[in-house]
């Protein structure tokens, strides 16, 4: 698709122009700056145009394009056709580029004196992304099928696509990728700022400017992670939110480093600490994300991850490697070179006892420690491959074990931080301040103990985390009347604490049982009686209800006075190379627990048919029947292609019948799989073709539903896996709280930046502008930072 290629290349061209012009403007300024802005604007326009062309191709069904063929199909609802734009890897790179471009526009307007340098770095990143898209294009044509597949060649280009991977056809799929890529893309801004600060050799202004961006990036990336967890819980059917999968980890460790950077910037702006480390902390998250993208997209981890991505094209992969290697060298090189020129930290002011500064330092250390654990764990298959040749991944147990002591320390720090003063306080004072939260936490612990949560280590961790929760709640309570805008950080911490409590409780105290239901027999599990009712799949059309995408397995679940129908979905996806079981679990929610119904194996048919193996022309006696295999013929499409039928003509005589009957069971190739289509005998029995050897003209016939032989009646066996998961509600509660808190903090720091910069350069403080639009003014009043102290000693200020 030429238009598609053209807009991508034009986008790359303008991104290149923006990079060069911004680089020139660093020295010259003036005219080239104006041109650079235009160039970046056009680059963004062409990124949007790329998305528009891709959407056009998806919606109008251009199945001659490889991307559209692989990730869309005619029968898909419009909404999922649109979501197809980020189902594959080309599309997700495009999503990354869109967000990056959008942030770029905002950055251009807000970076002030930093614009030229920041945008030079930033445009270069956009250029890299467009370069990847140019080589790994979503508009590549579908390669023609090989010579030996005449059927496929006749129908080329295809009129329909393979369709979205069934586990992605889900409401979360439409939300989760755009949000998480909003987070990934936001990591580029702190990276660009960090490099620019090192380039400019200036270490105060940049921290003020980058702070709201850093908070925003950490917040939105964290929320994207949570959404990914919800998606896994709702659709993957293994009964959990987080599995330490490599792809999950690649968004986890950048997030932790970003959070560390947020706290580092806080220490710098409030206490003048960490000045030399912050550029590094701000640059690392982006580099780690690129590294993670490399790990998951290069095919290194293909065998150990559930998120399957094909390997990238060579040229696209090399751009990614250049991005990673170049970025890393540039960052470390610049940082090492500038290290000695950076302002030394102020001589330590003696603080007594414990201070908030110490708590924040501990927090940063812990965040980095957790990031390193998951970084090493995720890279392990790569390391193992280098040394042993076999890619072996670490089990999730590794991360859980490593984080058990970690979460104890983290909870204590999280609980103490809001109660500590910057100037430090004595142990007695802190303990006094923390008493109330601690009592509440212990009470919670007793409550849980009486509810039956008794495993000591887990209970201990949960009590500590609820201690952190109450402590932050207390901090919010005390501040909310004085200045609502300052509660952001505490709200985030409270949300995180409660979310992690939910994760731990729902995982450590889950009940899990395999319930194998036989059709016609009741089962008892979890105090319920389980009865199989049927499947909703269209077996007429597909030959087997399990091949229907909308197949639901209906199970009646009852206990005295309570009855409901569980309907987990099961589908055998045969559109791709192998039969792929797709499961949508069924979840019933109560306020305190979930009942989660999934499958541990595909539903299967149990029957002991009468079996007759016959060569063409042979005759055999089975039970009361005499079978004669008359002939085998082919019909429909060409051999082995869609629509091909292998028909066996069979003559059946049963004792007591006046004359033999002729039946024609056959095997049909449909949707890439072989479907046996049965034939019915006058007495109600059915004949199905089992195995067949076309060359030897040998067919195995199976007689089912034979009157008087109950073992030949096929019965469904439903292998359910049922989970009882307590307090999942907390997992749903935590992340939204953290999101609100984080956004609040980001907005607050963006507002603060104006005052802080004015103070830094000793300019008159900006006036609160009168607004014409009333609602906005109200919002502004609500968000107004606490009035800056004008009497700030002028000694700190530098010449403008």
């Amino acid at each position: 698709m030429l238009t598609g290629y053209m807009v991508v290349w034009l986008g790359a061209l303008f991104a290149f122009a923006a990079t060069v012009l911004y680089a020139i403007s660093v020295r010259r300024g003036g005219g080239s700056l104006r041109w650079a802005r235009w160039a970046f604007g056009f680059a963004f326009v062409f990124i949007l145009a790329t998305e528009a062309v891709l959407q056009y191709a998806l919606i109008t069904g251009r199945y001659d394009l490889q991307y559209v063929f692989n990730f869309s199909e005619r029968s898909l609802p419009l909404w999922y056709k649109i979501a197809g734009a980020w189902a594959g890897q080309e599309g997700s790179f495009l999503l990354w580029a869109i967000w990056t471009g959008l942030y770029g526009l905002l950055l251009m307007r807000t970076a002030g004196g930093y614009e030229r340098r920041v945008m030079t770095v930033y445009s270069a990143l956009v250029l890299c992304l467009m370069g990847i898209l140019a080589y790994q294009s979503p508009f590549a044509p579908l390669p023609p099928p090989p010579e030996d597949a005449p059927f496929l060649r006749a129908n080329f280009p295809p009129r329909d696509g393979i369709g979205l991977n069934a586990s992605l056809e889900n409401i979360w799929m439409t939300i989760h990728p755009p949000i998480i890529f909003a987070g990934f893309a936001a990591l580029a801004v702190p990276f660009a700022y960090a490099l620019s600060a090192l380039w400019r050799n200036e270490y105060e202004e940049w921290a003020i400017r980058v702070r709201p961006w850093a908070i925003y990036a950490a917040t939105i990336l964290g929320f994207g992670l949570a959404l990914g967890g919800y998606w896994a819980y709702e659709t993957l059917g293994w009964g959990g939110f987080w599995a330490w999968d490599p792809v999950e980890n690649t968004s986890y460790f950048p997030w932790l480093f970003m959070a560390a950077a947020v706290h580092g910037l806080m220490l710098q702006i409030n206490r003048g600490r960490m000045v030399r480390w912050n550029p590094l902390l701000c640059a690392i998250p982006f580099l780690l994300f690129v590294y993670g993208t490399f790990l998951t997209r290069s095919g290194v981890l293909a065998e150990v991850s559930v998120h399957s991505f094909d390997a990238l094209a060579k040229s696209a992969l090399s751009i990614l490697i250049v991005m990673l290697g170049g970025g890393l060298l540039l960052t470390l090189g610049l940082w090492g070179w500038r290290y000695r020129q950076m302002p030394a930290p102020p001589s330590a002011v003696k603080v007594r006892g414990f201070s908030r500064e110490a708590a924040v330092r501990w927090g940063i250390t812990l965040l980095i420690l957790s990031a390193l654990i998951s970084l090493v764990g995720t890279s392990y298959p790569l390391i193992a491959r280098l040394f042993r040749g076999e890619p072996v991944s670490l089990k999730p147990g590794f991360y859980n074990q490593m984080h058990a002591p970690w979460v104890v320390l983290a909870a204590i720090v999280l609980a103490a931080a809001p109660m500590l003063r910057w100037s430090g306080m004595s142990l007695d004072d802190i303990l006094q301040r923390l008493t109330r939260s601690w009592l509440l936490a212990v009470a919670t612990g007793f409550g849980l103990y009486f509810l039956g949560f008794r495993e000591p280590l887990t209970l201990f961790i949960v009590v500590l985390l609820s201690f952190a929760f109450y402590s932050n709640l207390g901090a919010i309570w005390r501040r909310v009347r004085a200045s609502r805008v300052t509660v952001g950080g505490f709200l985030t911490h409270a949300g995180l604490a409660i979310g992690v409590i939910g994760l731990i409780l729902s995982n450590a105290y889950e009940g899990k049982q395999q319930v194998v239901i036989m059709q016609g027999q009741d089962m008892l599990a979890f105090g319920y009686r389980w009865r199989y009712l049927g499947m909703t799949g269209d077996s007429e059309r597909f030959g087997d209800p399990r091949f229907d995408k909308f197949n639901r397995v209906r199970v009646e679940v009852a206990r005295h006075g309570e009855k409901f129908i569980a309907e987990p979905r099961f589908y055998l996806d045969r559109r791709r190379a192998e039969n792929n079981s797709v499961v949508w679990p069924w979840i019933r929610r109560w306020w305190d627990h979930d009942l989660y119904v999934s499958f541990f194996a595909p539903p299967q048919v149990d029957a002991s048919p009468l079996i007759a193996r016959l060569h063409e022309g042979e005759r055999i006696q089975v039970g009361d029947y005499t079978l004669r295999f008359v002939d085998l013929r082919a019909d429909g499409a060409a051999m082995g292609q869609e629509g091909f039928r292998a028909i066996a003509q069979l003559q059946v005589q049963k004792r007591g019948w006046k004359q033999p009957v002729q039946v024609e069971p056959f095997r049909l190739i449909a949707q890439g799989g072989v479907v046996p289509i049965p034939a019915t005998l006058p007495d109600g029995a059915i004949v199905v073709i089992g195995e067949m050897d076309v060359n030897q003209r040998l067919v195995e016939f199976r007689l089912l539903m034979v009157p008087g032989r109950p073992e030949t009646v096929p019965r469904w066996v439903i292998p359910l896996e049922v989970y009882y998961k307590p307090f999942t509600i907390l997992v749903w509660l935590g992340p939204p709280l953290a999101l609100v808190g984080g956004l609040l903090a980001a907005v607050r720091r963006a507002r603060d930046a104006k005052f802080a910069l004015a103070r830094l350069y000793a300019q008159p403080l900006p006036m609160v502008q009168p607004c014409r639009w009333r609602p906005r003014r109200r919002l502004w009043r609500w968000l107004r930072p606490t009035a800056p102290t004008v009497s700030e000693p002028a000694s700190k200020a530098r010449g403008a």
Partner: protein
Amino acid sequence: MRWSNLLILALIVVGLVFTVRAFVENTSPYVKVRDLESHPRNVHVALTPIKESIRFDIKTMTLTFEGKDETGVLRVVYPKGKPNNFEAATQVVVIGDYKNGVFEAREMLVKCPSKYQGEQRSARR
């Protein structure tokens, strides 16, 4: 001062020991059938299933089969049903423990000929 240094050193040592232990407990290496006696717990074994030995008890969803590699034959019990492409499998990787002459598989990865075709296709692109 010396005491606090010593304390930090002790903490680091404890942390390292803890890390190494977590590593060892949670990696599961590939092992040949012959070496199972010495490495019985938590291993990957790559096997070719022997068609005639496959038994499946549908009431308990337990699959038992024998598989072989270059070094020997191994009896495997897998309690999580029969994967739908198991019959066509040319190689399976079982993950679990070896106990009393039987390999108790917790997880099983099935490799089919068709999958390799799929991989070839994507590699060609």
